[in-house]
């Protein structure tokens, strides 16, 4: 392959560590969160009990997945106070941090789909089915309707996100097969297919991020030399263009799409330091 390696230029310009800073931070976050859940069952010393649907930290802090909670409500059950409080805390956190921070910094399936995307680039897989990114919102709607119609949290019967996380903590069983299906789907059928097109959990958290202040900004977009590395690594590449190239339309420099996962990979791979974490509110700081 004659194509240059993505991020090589950034590594040369900024050094390897700075070119992988946010990726390493994100993997550390994913591993650390999983480790917190695993310490209890493995050592008998309980820090966090439960899983991502509901967890209880040090017997004081309840955290509940608001999407599951919403499905439960639609199914006709009003959850007890502890679960509702946990849901409120999570809603408040992601409304500020950006909903899809859940996807890129917490979700255990992210490592799987990132691996599929990386392998897809390495193998140069181009072919595949076309799938609109709006499918996830239809999926979200469908899961909510299903909860109301069946009176059960039907989506949790098949949700690979919760199945993988629960499986890692309580025993995986055949859940690995579903994870493998997601991996192969992303690798061969639709690039970034699961997280970027289908997953209703991500769609729910996208809607949470509509007004979230913490954002990636194309602060120094004038320096962009169109190397395209950011587009290549971005799991939601449609979010970049309006901010990066929309100056003449009065768009940007904030990446305002709720689909942005705040993964920070664009900041890493940009050799010219175009991107940075910032807020939606602050002034554009020209440099």
């Amino acid at each position: 392959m004659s194509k240059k390696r993505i991020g090589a230029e950034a590594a040369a310009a900024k050094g390897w560590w700075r070119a992988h800073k946010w990726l390493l931070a994100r993997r550390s976050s994913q591993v650390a969160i999983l480790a917190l859940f695993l310490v209890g069952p493995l050592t008998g010393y309980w820090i966090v009990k439960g899983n991502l649907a509901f967890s209880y930290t040090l017997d004081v802090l309840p955290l509940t997945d608001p999407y599951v909670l919403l499905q439960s409500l639609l199914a006709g059950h009003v959850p007890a106070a502890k679960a509702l409080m946990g849901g409120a805390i999570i809603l408040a956190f992601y409304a500020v941090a950006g909903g899809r921070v859940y996807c890129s910094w917490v979700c255990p399936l992210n490592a799987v789909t990132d691996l599929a995307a990386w392998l897809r680039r390495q193998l140069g897989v181009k072919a595949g089915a076309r799938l609109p990114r709006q499918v996830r919102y239809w999926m979200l709607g469908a899961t909510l309707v299903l909860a109301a119609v069946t009176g059960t949290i039907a989506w949790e019967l098949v949700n690979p996100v919760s199945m993988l996380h629960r499986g890692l903590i309580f025993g995986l069983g055949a859940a690995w097969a579903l994870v493998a299906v997601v991996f192969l789907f992303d690798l061969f059928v639709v690039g970034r297919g699961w997280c970027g097109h289908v997953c209703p959990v991500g769609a729910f958290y996208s809607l949470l991020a509509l007004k979230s202040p913490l954002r990636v900004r194309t602060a120094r977009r004038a320096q962009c030399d169109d190397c395209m590395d950011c587009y290549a690594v971005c799991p939601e590449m449609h979010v970049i263009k309006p901010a990066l190239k929309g100056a003449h339309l009065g768009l940007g420099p904030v990446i305002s799409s709720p689909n942005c996962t705040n993964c920070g990979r664009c900041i890493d791979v940009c050799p010219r330091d175009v991107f940075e974490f910032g807020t939606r509110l602050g002034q554009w700081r020209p440099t």
Partner: protein
Amino acid sequence: MEEGKAASSGKARRRQFLLDAARMACGVGVLAGTLALYAKQSRALPPHVLRPPGARPEPSYQGACIRCGLCVRDCPYGILDLAKPEERVATGTPYFIAREKPCEMCESIPCVKACPTGALDHGLTDINKARMGLAVLVDQETCLNYLGMRCEVCYRVCPLIDKAIKLELQQGQTHARFIPTVHSEHCTGCGKCEYACVLDVAAIKIFPIGAVKTDLGARRSAGWQKKAAQ
């Protein structure tokens, strides 16, 4: 001219939008339909599987349980498990199998206290009021007591001995039999009797109450009980 072009391109856009919407609605609809059928299959529990104490009746339990596993963690005897996808219980929900590990009926009911959503009803504060199921002596042809022996293991292990299971004397033609008899007003469905039954396949089993308990109905009631009440 210009206007006509704009109008037709607007029409084309609208057409494309409707087509896209129809495509997605149909695609997602197929998936949702499949999932709805699967959800329907998962509504009932297999007969040998029991829910923790205080569980709301199926299938509304599956609308209330968010599958966090806190009940599993707080069960001091490690009896509960979360269903794996290949098992016949709704994925991620807690269950136990009486024949393998029956409920120990903790007085403090830690599993119910741990439940954050109330899928296990917090109103259950007396474990003797739990109704996880109902014991039924299903096989009278193999039950050793029915055969005239004095096995009585189910009776001895019952946490509510002489209430939930009583031995009732029955005069046979050749000899007396002591029949283990379950009383539904006391049986919690803990499963100790099913667990302890000495036969290869238990002669006494726990079933969902709705599947085995009938009602005399308003028009048929025992006259002597009525008289006693008056």
